[in-house]
């Protein structure tokens, strides 16, 4: 061990903040610049790159995660504001044995993607939509998925995937 290890931790500078948040059920402690968004903290600090950065201005939905159980765009949330909060990302959806979440399985069955870049956001949004009880019709699914853009145009298959899970009323379709 070097001497450095014995030193007390450096105090946070005015533009840094120490925080603890739960990501997919696991408490993570980090020190970040106050400017760091939840999106960048997930990707660049915690190395969880499943959540995608698209527009970085709240317009495309690629960075959708669940914050305390509700879908949000993580590019417009400061990591500093997430102290003590629960974050669920695409990495946290599969069952403990590795079986993909029913919505993930439906996206695969219906080919609900082409390039795949918007897919984690689409799936997080879809899981949330089902929890909100908004999968009643194709029109309702389209309306309440409109915050997730897909430049490849996989929309018909995305709607089909969500419709299937909604119709099945799968008890496992939650988080």
């Amino acid at each position, binding site marked *: 061990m070097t001497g450095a290890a014995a030193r007390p931790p450096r105090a946070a500078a*005015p*533009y840094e*903040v120490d925080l603890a948040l739960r990501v997919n059920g696991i408490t993570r402690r980090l020190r970040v*610049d*106050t*400017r760091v*968004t939840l999106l960048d903290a997930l990707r660049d600090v915690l190395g969880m790159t499943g959540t995608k950065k698209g527009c*970085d*201005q*709240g317009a495309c*939905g690629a960075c*959708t995660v669940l*914050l305390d159980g*509700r*879908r*949000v*765009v993580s590019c*417009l*949330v*400061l990591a*500093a*504001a997430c*102290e003590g909060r629960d974050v669920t990302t695409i990495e946290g959806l599969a069952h403990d044995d590795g079986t993909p979440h029913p919505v993930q399985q439906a996206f695969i069955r219906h080919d609900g993607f082409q390039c795949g870049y918007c897919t984690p956001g689409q799936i997080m*949004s879809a899981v*949330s*939509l089902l929890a*909100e009880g908004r999968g009643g019709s194709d029109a309702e699914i*389209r*309306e*309440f998925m*409109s*915050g*997730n853009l897909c430049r490849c145009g996989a929309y018909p298959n995305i709607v089909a995937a969500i419709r299937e899970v909604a119709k099945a009323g799968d008890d496992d379709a939650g988080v």
Partner: protein
Amino acid sequence: MMRAFEYVRATDTARAVEMVTADPNTSYLAGGTTQLDLMKDGVLAPERLVDITHLPLRGVTGGRGALRVGALTTMEELAADTTVVERIPFVRDALLLGASTQLRNMATIAGNLLQRTRCRYFRDPAVAACNKRERGSGCAAMTGTARMHAILGTSPHCIALHASDVAVPLVALDAILRVQGRDGARGVPLTRFYLTPGDTPDVENLLRHGELITAVEIPLPALGTRSGYLKVRDRVSYEFALTSAAAALLIEDGIIVEARVGLGGVGTVPWRAREAEEILIGAPATMEVFRQSAERALEGARTISGTAFKVELAKRTLVRILRTVSGVVA
């Protein structure tokens, strides 16, 4: 890249108000959907953010004569409120037709009312001419491409649109803002809160620096009142209004007894169409009356080439929602 800033989490409302009031470079942070977006764009550059999301200003109470909506209540939460759904469904409709579910889970009602314009020239610091960003610098929208801009309440110095949907039914209902300042609290009617640009487009409302909206009070219309909100846009979802109209009507024996009308997508401020209401109140609920009211509502419109289409579109939007709400056929 955003300018470095200090982050403070407020645990006490009075303390938060004190902190922001004392420093012109300190701002509140609530839902963040406008604040962080404009900080990334370099339009806003506070040195300190006071996060107010943990203050006890969330939730909807009341329900007889008026609703009291805590300032931090999210758009999704307000849209799901039982009294809103039953008594003022056009508020619910306006909320759910705005933004996306993700943004509605983040954005607070007070933040929605304080949202900044979507004028692309305002939001792009590379454009020098913007009287709203810097008084006296000019207005690029006047001579540039302008489609999503205002035609009512404009001035030669600014045609930036107020893009809130929910503010439209709320001005129609005479909502009142509860505002906390360092030296006390006050109530401000929403219809007087917003300021048309005039010579000072940078001054958008009556809030003084540091004053905090703590609640929005929404008076409920008489039982039997029917309401609706129609939003016309370039795509069917997740888009700002080209034009919109909010109407609440109480009709007895074919005569309009009460009428409240607001227009969106057309005003530099959320637009209360009192001239339209004057035509409607006491008149029979007919298409002819609806058309007259729409003509009056748009009489003061001033357009540039890119916004000329909005006059007729706004009239038709208003006539259509009046027809839908009243149930008048043909």
